[in-house]
């Protein structure tokens, strides 16, 4: 239990810093809203593969709430929450179904993160036309998700050796 508390703290802090670094990257220059690298998702994926699902969920939730209230605003917190929760649920299901390894899980997570945010966007502006952003967001989510998945795989392999799990 004690070890878990420490690990919670380390991972939340790490995810928090990743989110901060992300606010420094000017991705909005691409002209499509909502594209992000998803660095914080790296922590969530690693947690999912090295701790219990429940632990990873708590870390993800705490991270989104903390980041939403420090670097963002109410809107970005709600978007982050919907994207984060949907992507988490989908990743857990895909992982349970054992269709993909860590790369595929992270890839699907990236896609569904963007789908979740797009759903909120449609509800907010009350116009389904916002789905116009769906194709570029899907592709962006797949690319960033794959990159995150590959890196997460490297980390998990080393962590498992280190922690003997």
């Amino acid at each position, binding site marked *: 239990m004690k070890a878990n508390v420490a690990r919670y703290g380390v991972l939340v802090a790490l995810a928090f810093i990743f989110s901060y670094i992300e606010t420094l990257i000017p991705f*909005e*220059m691409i*002209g*499509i*809203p*909502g594209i992000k690298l998803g660095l914080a998702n790296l922590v969530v994926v690693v947690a999912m*593969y*090295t701790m219990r699902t429940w632990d990873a969920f708590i870390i993800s939730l705490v991270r989104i709430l903390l980041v939403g209230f420090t670097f*963002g*605003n109410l*809107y*970005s917190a709600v*978007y982050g929450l919907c994207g984060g929760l949907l992507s988490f649920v989908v990743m857990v299901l895909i*992982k349970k179904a*054992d*269709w*993909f*390894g*860590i*790369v*595929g899980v992270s*890839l*699907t997570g990236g*896609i569904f993160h963007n789908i979740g945010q797009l759903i909120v*966007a449609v509800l*907010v*502006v*009350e*116009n*389904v*036309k*916002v789905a*116009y*952003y769906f*194709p*570029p967001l*899907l*592709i962006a989510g*797949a690319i960033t998700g*794959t990159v995150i998945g590959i890196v997460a*795989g490297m980390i*998990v*392999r080393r962590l498992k050796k280190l922690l003997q*799990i």
Partner: protein
Amino acid sequence: MAEKIKTAKHRRNEVILIGIVLLAAVGYMLWRQLAPTEPGGEVVVQTDGKEYARLPLSENAELDIAQGERHNHLVIKDGVATVTEATCPDKQCVHQADISRNGEMIVCLPNQVLITIEHGEDAELDGTAK
């Protein structure tokens, strides 16, 4: 905790998944390049799910989309619409690409503003959520 992070089956499925995504990406880009996009006729501004203003794209104009304390400044110049200033916290609408073709849009989520380009002549309520 004994689950494998990568097996032969995973690898095969992942290759298929990435293939599908790549195909979708290429298809989308081809479609964007090849599909005939007519130049738009009208700039339609929607706030909070309701139509706020409808301006011809052909005339230079500036519009302050005001909703109480919340503002977005729309500029139409030489057949191109863009948002130059906004009171929203993230300024996504200011950074989004300029729009001029039919169907293109700029969205400001915090202020619930949606700016789209439409045909003009047959601009009924198509696609507008009630």
